[in-house]
């Protein structure tokens, strides 16, 4: 059961401001999402190992340097940049 406190906590962790009048609706929506995902809990998994479903292990790369992207490419999508740095508003 999702509570208003859960929503506030999630908002806090995600650094989102949630207005008081949004809380009830968000709680309802989140409950529905979680209930949907709860279907997974009903599956019978006693006989199956879900630790490694794709049956893949040890996919490695060797320690060889590949070229990085030029700085212009890296910061191309940044909302704000300065002298090669990404710039964001300082967070408290």
């Amino acid at each position, binding site marked *: 059961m999702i509570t208003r406190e859960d929503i506030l906590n999630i908002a806090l*962790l995600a*650094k989102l401001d949630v207005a008081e009048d949004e809380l009830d609706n968000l709680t309802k929506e989140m409950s529905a999402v979680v209930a949907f995902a709860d279907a997974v809990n009903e599956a019978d998994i006693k006989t199956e190992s879900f*630790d490694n479903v794709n049956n893949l292990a040890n996919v*490695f*790369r060797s320690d060889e340097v*590949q070229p990085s*992207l030029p700085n212009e490419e*890296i910061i191309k999508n940044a909302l704000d940049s300065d002298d090669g740095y990404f710039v964001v508003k300082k*967070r*408290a």
Partner: protein
Amino acid sequence: MNYELVSGFETHVELSTKTKIFCGCTTQFGGDPNTHCCPICIGLPGTLPKLNEQVVHYAIMAGLATNCEIANVAKMDRKNYCYPDLPKAYQISQFDMPLCKNGYVELSNGRKIRILRIHIEEDAGKLIHQQGNTYIDYNRGGVPLIEIVSEPDIRTVEEAKEYVEKLQLIMRYIGVSDCKMQEGSMRCDVNISVRPKGSEELGTRTEIKNMNSITFIAKAMEYEFERQVSVVESGGKVVQETLRYDEASDTTSSMRGKEDAHDYRYFREPDLVTINVLDSLIEEIRESLPELPFVKLQRYIDELGIPETDAQLLTKYRKIAEYFEDSIKGTQNPRTAANFILGQIFKRLENESAKEEFDIKTTADQLREMILLIESGKVKMNLAKSTLEKMLDTGKAFGELVSESDMAGLSDEALIELCKQAVSENPNAVADYKAGKEKALKSILGTVMKNSRGKADANMAEAKLKELLS
């Protein structure tokens, strides 16, 4: 009441791989901002991380060198937190299935500091806060780290210092990290609590984050210990919190408000597959590990007869230990090489990093050749010492600087002749000496040495001079 310090360490060690943990970008320190980056390490959508195999190997080496069990199955997990130093809003780390666990580091007082686990993870980017803005450089983002988590087994500041130094020494020896604390390639989070002496219960702990100097770790721990004791003594309770140590004021202060309450919501990293470690790989890596410094230390003392303080200096730096071992091959007394290294050679290595680099012109083979000549009686110690200086200056071999006839030294007659000459050249010193000034003999001896061009044996010359002047 007497209080006891209880402390555990989380030590981050940057691995010396060439590339980042999940992409091929270089791990080189520095560089212009955001030039060692690619779509993977800045977390663009649609990219897939791929684990650097060397990271796994280095972590296993670190685990074996600290007596850990190595997991046969390990996995990566997402640690979620929202802060601009992580472009993806999560760090790929290991949660419940780390590569190494249950190890220990033994201190010189015989106490074992248990290691709970060692896991691999990616480093975060560097932030510069300026005028209400944060400038982000992701060059360091994705550089591989191991985090070495100790149990709260440390009881004194001295133990803490030794523990950190020992980890540093081990990691450098096995070559997994340069552990340069000033460059941030080794950083410690220090957990501290206090309790009445004799109590078995753990008190509430605080955590001092991101310490990168052993001196400041010691200072911060002393301050925090006193602070907690005074809180408890005045009837208060220590609050569990994360602290920052301020070097200028030598105090700790709280770092985080309640909004940062830890809730990392770890879950398995779906973009990366399981890591299987075969026993054969573990054994292969175990075999390849160099002799560890404290094993070496004991061997130098027990088998080579090196005094403990000298053995400590020789084993503190891997390159010096290797040089020493190469230079004593086939020689009779290892202490001869030890004395040359710790004397004349050390004098030329001014600081820790020079000792670490050990960039000197004389090779171990060249030193060994000279020692063999000394041991066979062909070369006198005096000549060896003065020639070694020239060898260290020029990189030339002993034989290039000293001829066979020089090596032969002086005959008794020639020495007496030189002494007589020096006496006649220094009438004032002779008079002083005869008047009782022992020191005056030194200047006469100096003349003998100079005129013999270093070939005379100083002890023998001194004896001859005393005879002549008696």
